[in-house]
């Protein structure tokens, strides 16, 4: 049975693009277009992993992640944080710190290279 991944991002174009990557790798994909919707779907869709955007207008990724990790029913679901900063070490360290602070399981800069995204997801699911 294929694993289900929930994508939470307020940008529909980005959701669509990431969906295509994941579907090409035969994952089931569910989408949420905001933080609040993301939390609801985390409960209703029962995903195996959540790809979570940081910058969202209603509730940002850090807040969503905090709530997920505080919920005993959901805190086992790995969270891959999609950070908004282009990869350069001066800033990745910063986001890395933020990622760790929010207890996300991993973080990745967007836009993402498809192979990198898939590898990270596989690694998280294998844990």
């Amino acid at each position, binding site marked *: 049975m294929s694993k289900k991944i929930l994508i939470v991002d307020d940008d529909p174009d980005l959701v669509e*693009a990431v969906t295509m990557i994941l579907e090409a790798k035969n994952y089931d994909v569910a989408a949420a277009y905001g933080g609040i919707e993301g939390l609801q779907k985390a409960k209703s869709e029962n995903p195996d992993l959540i790809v979570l955007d940081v*910058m969202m207008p209603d509730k940002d990724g850090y807040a969503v992640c905090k709530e997920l990790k505080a919920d005993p029913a959901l805190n086992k679901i790995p969270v891959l944080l999609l950070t908004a900063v282009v990869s350069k070490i*001066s800033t990745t360290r*910063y986001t890395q710190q933020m990622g760790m602070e929010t207890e996300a399981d991993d973080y990745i800069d*967007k836009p993402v290279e498809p192979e990198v995204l898939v590898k990270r997801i596989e690694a998280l699911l294998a844990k």
Partner: protein
Amino acid sequence: MGKSVVLASSPAARRSSNEVLLEGEFMPDQVNILVIDDEQIMRDGSSRILSKDGWGVITAENGQLGLDVIKSRSEDIDVILLDLMMPGISGMEVLDHIRAINQNLLVIVITGYATVESAVEAMKKGAYDFIPKPFTPDQLRIVVRRALEKRSLQKETEFLRREREKSLRDIATEKSKVKTIINCMGDGVLVCDRDGCIVLTNPAASRMLKVSETSLLGNFLSQCNLDSELSKTIDESLKAKDLSYSSVSQEFSIGQPEEIFLRAHTAPVRSDLGETMGSVTVLQDISHLKELDKMKSEFIAMVAHELRAPIAAVEQQLTVILSRMAGDVSEKQEKLLARAKERTRGLLNLIKDLLDLSKIEAGRMVQYKEPVTLQEIIQRVVDLMRVEAENKKIDLQFPVPSQNPLIHADRTSMEGVFTNLISNAIKYTPEGGKVWVTLGEEGGFAKASVSDTGIGIKKDDLSRIFDKFYRVRTVETRQIVGTGLGLSIVKSIVDAHLGSISVESEEGGGTTFTVLLPKGSNPTTC
């Protein structure tokens, strides 16, 4: 030059214009001797003897006439030969008058009936010397010469006295000028002596620092309750032995609730022997600039964020298409899309730099200062850059330094500094070249240099490379992608750490960037 009547307009001369009472003439720029004697023979004789030596001689046949000349020309007369025994006003009386006109005039009295008493009396009245009648030409010459020697010493002394007065006056004028300038300046000025005592300040400084001028002047820095960073910097500038320590700029804010932002430039004052004599700090109120800058930074941050999201989405879509996850892509399409992706990548880099810059300018980037060793930071960056260097077949070296200075810095932004410098060095060095980083200490500073064997920088460009958006445009750099913000970010970060960055380069001969950062003073308390 023959004899001529001078002072023809003097009353005495006019009164007896049918007689020649006054003979001879003053020679400009030359020694002039006035002979006052009632005897024609004496006048003519003296005149002849003295003229032979090239001196100008004027003779007057009585005391009144002589005094008239002295009154009008006392400056031009060097020595006066005065006969004591004359009809009319006596020689002694004339001597009294001469002394009253000008004390410095040298009078040699001629004593007709060589009585020692009258000579002594004349000397007591201030005559310089005496010569008894009759005298030989040589005796006259000797006496006059001695008087002239005295005269030249007098002149010399007078000249020196005037010079001294003039320079004292000049200094006083200069002092008052400097004081006026400093007091009128809009910028604050704070001058300390080598003990840290404030010796000069101005109203602007006390206004900016919100401390009264009287509690600044004459007090030690430590007593003035100044901003601690500022006192520390001034203190360091006084202690700096290293001649390369020139000046430090820093920004700080003071006052609540109406906060004002100040920029301070501090530089040591050195004697010509290189000894530190004191320290000068110039303060600028930059509150207004800060406000504008903040608005600008916020605007840039806002625009950048707004731009970033759609461009990131476009690039994400491109990566999906290019990885064939949205169906087949022809070779031609792939080429175009790959190009498009390069362009979005360039835009995202530009936005990232803009965000970095606005963060630094908003003071948010260098907030987390902690004790770090530069070796650790540089090593980390060098490790990350190794792949990039190897791809270009560039030999990237970071030899283990003999000193490992500890600095007080924001680790993340410090990594940004060296990433930028090393990445630039790799970018601007042709394949097969060499890039090396050295680390050491110099005075109170940690000194790190990034050198390369690259294309170098033209002299004209050198002064501008730290400007925002400035890029060196040549045939060689056309292919190199960049935003023109990297070095200005580097400089902002180094400035925020109270350090300095400099560059040395030769066109075609490689480039070296040198960063100086103040060493962490006490590692245990950091």
